[in-house]
């Protein structure tokens, strides 16, 4: 109810903003309320702090933050665009902004960037490029980045007799899984207490799985399989961003998925039936059902807040290429093309992308890694102060083993096709060769 009122209030403010627009040059005159949407509750406090700092520096601007859960966020936004009640600024996502940009719903920022001489080199390399759309125009300034690492239960590791140092040097290959699979097998325990690498292990009655599973990963597999496939020399498409063909039928991808799903068959990883009948990977891990999971850096704090389990981080394994790999993804803020106060909106976006917000506020909260290089260092320290060594996440950036997240048109349609195909493969209802057909369907979208 409270939120309804708040939203109604925002709408009223927005409407009054509309009225004011009639007079030119109004931006500098009266107080302006900037409507800002985001989806992550964990990040709301830090951006509220940024909003307060922004208001302090620019008293004429007030930022009103509204949060919607991820599942409702994009629908609500779409409806808001149609009904003309879209927020001035909202947190964008790489899988969504190309479509919005193509339909002219979000504002290109190039003029503002040039006018205000925004230095794009302060951001981690590559992050700023993610927000240049196919039309060559920039739609966002990077605000954070994320990578993938292994989170493991330290007690279960100890019981298995594995040393934390070993976790930092694991490698895998699609043939026998390497030392990585050995550790997963060792961490798996059946109902009788037999481990996955011991004779007599009962794969039908597993008490603790060595590796958790979140889902089949559809066509993205960010935290599920992307780190294996890419350390096997695979890439999503012929180029990134804006691929014209995808590589889901590539033998390197097929052998990666074949190996990964074999973990299910061996009883080291839960079946798709279990995964789809479960509330989620985080809760199962918290209950000690998974000894380790592969996760994105944005969830780190959530794992550390779980009661009853102690966790530590390890890097993703070294693959056949001799290197590790992690997707490199990041968020940015988009401005609605229909915003009544684009100048105010830009001032806020610029502030969100500046050290004043990222380095002085966001970095200290130790929730996400800010996009600014110097702020990343501060965030590492803040995580360390909270007892979390985040090197397994940031080492990808230092060692250059990051791969930019795929940015493509038709992403929703790709996801629909790939969800079905990958779910079927992970459920052993289809062979990895069904990827040939799926890849043809995906590439057909670009025909």
């Amino acid at each position, binding site marked *: 109810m409270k939120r309804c009122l708040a939203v109604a209030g925002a709408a009223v403010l927005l409407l009054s903003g509309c009225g004011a627009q009639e007079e030119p040059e109004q931006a500098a005159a009266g107080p302006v309320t900037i409507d800002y949407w985001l989806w992550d509750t964990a990040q709301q406090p830090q951006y509220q702090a940024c909003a307060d700092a922004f208001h302090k520096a620019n008293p004429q601007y007030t930022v009103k933050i509204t949060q919607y859960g991820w599942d409702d966020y994009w629908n609500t936004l779409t409806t808001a665009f149609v009904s003309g009640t879209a927020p001035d600024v909202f947190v964008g996502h790489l899988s969504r902004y190309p479509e919005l940009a193509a339909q002219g719903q979000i504002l290109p920022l190039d003029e503002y960037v040039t006018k205000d001489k925004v230095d794009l080199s302060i951001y981690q390399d590559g992050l700023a490029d993610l927000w240049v759309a196919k039309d060559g125009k920039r739609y966002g300034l990077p605000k954070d980045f994320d990578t993938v690492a292994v989170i493991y239960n330290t007690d279960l590791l100890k019981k298995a007799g594995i040393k934390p140092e070993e976790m930092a040097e694991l490698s895998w290959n699609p043939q026998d899984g390497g030392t990585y699979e050995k550790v997963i097998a060792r961490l798996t325990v059946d109902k009788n207490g037999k481990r996955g690498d011991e004779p007599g292990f009962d794969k039908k009655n597993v008490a603790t799985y060595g590796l958790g599973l979140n889902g089949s990963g559809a066509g993205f597999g960010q935290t599920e399989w992307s780190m294996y496939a890419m350390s096997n020399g695979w890439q999503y498409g012929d180029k990134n961003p804006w691929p014209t063909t995808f590589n889901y039928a590539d033998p390197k991808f097929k052998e990666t998925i074949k190996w990964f799903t074999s973990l299910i068959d061996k009883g080291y990883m839960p079946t*798709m*039936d*279990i995964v*789809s*009948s479960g509330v989620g990977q985080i809760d199962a891990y918290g209950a000690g059902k998974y000894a380790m999971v592969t996760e994105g850096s944005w969830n780190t704090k959530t794992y550390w807040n779980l009661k009853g389990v102690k966790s530590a981080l390890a890097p993703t394994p070294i693959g056949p290429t001799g290197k590790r790999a992690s997707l490199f993804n990041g968020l940015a803020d988009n401005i609605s093309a229909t915003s009544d106060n684009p100048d105010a909106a830009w001032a806020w976006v610029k502030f969100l992308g500046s050290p004043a917000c990222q380095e002085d506020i966001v970095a200290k909260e130790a929730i996400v890694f800010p996009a600014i290089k110097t702020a990343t260092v501060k965030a590492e320290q803040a995580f360390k102060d909270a007892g979390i060594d985040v090197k397994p996440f940031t080492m990808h950036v230092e060692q250059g083993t990051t791969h930019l997240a795929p940015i493509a048109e038709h992403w929703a349609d790709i996801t*629909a096709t790939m969800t079905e195909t990958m*779910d*079927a493969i992970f459920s052993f209802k289809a062979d990895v060769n069904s990827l040939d057909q799926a890849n043809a369907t995906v590439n057909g979208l670009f025909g």
Partner: protein
Amino acid sequence: MTSDTVRAAPRTPPGTVPEPTPPPPLRRRLGDLPVAVLFVLPAAIGFALFYLWPAVRGAYLSLTRYNVLTPPRFIGLENYEKLFGDRLFWNALKVTAEYVVLNIVSQTVISMLLAVLLYRLTKSMVVRGIVLLPYLVANVVVALVWFWMLDFQLGVVNNVIEWLGFDRVAFFGSDLAIPTIAGINTWRHMGYTALLIFAGLQMIPPSVYEAAAIDGASEWRTFWRVTLPLLRPVMALVMVLSVIGSFQVFDTIAVTTSGGPINATRVIYFYIYDLAFNRFNFGYAAALSSVLFVLLAGIAYVQLRLSRAGESDLRGS
């Protein structure tokens, strides 16, 4: 009849030839119409605004390519042609039908049982209230709570199953997902349906039961020969409502399986939603909705015809 019409009725003594009367005043000719219109108006406006207009516009959009953010482009019957070759559409129909059958059968049988028990055993309003409780909880909440309780690894239900010595059950796995969701919705709706049937039971005059008792009919026989036939109009209503309601299953699936695993729970409404709001394919989604509309209208018509819902076997009472 309103008092106006009574007052306006000509008072002619019996046996006399009525004089040719002047044409009745306008008010009389219209009879109850103005009042009726007045009462129907709010509902009619609501219906026109929120059902009729969207339906007409939906029918138009089904002939277009439309992504909401740019104007629709007319493409004729292309969406409908595509629909016939769409494997997922046919799968959605199959999955939905499976759900409807499971849900209707379990819901009707359990509700009937509950209603008869309520009618025969207790007059307590408290018990009636308790029976209705699940229906008062929002669908999404019910679905989420059950999703937690049925969780494979953490759920209380699976813990009990294991404690009893059986294997854990993947309730939302590809084989069991639809029966599980049908079960959850049965649990939520059975109280409401039971009360509808209960109301029907109360309309059956006690005299017929007395007559049955005098004839020495057993409880079982009385139920099949007296109660059930006399419930027909109510049951027809219940069936039409719950069949249409079941076809529209959406929220339970949206918060649990999201159409998966693979396509096991991609019911027609979820498919339409997915196409429209996730994939911005509003034109095609509108075509699917139109087909679903025709289908549901047909089913409702057949049901009403078959069950002769307008008539009752109660005569002269």
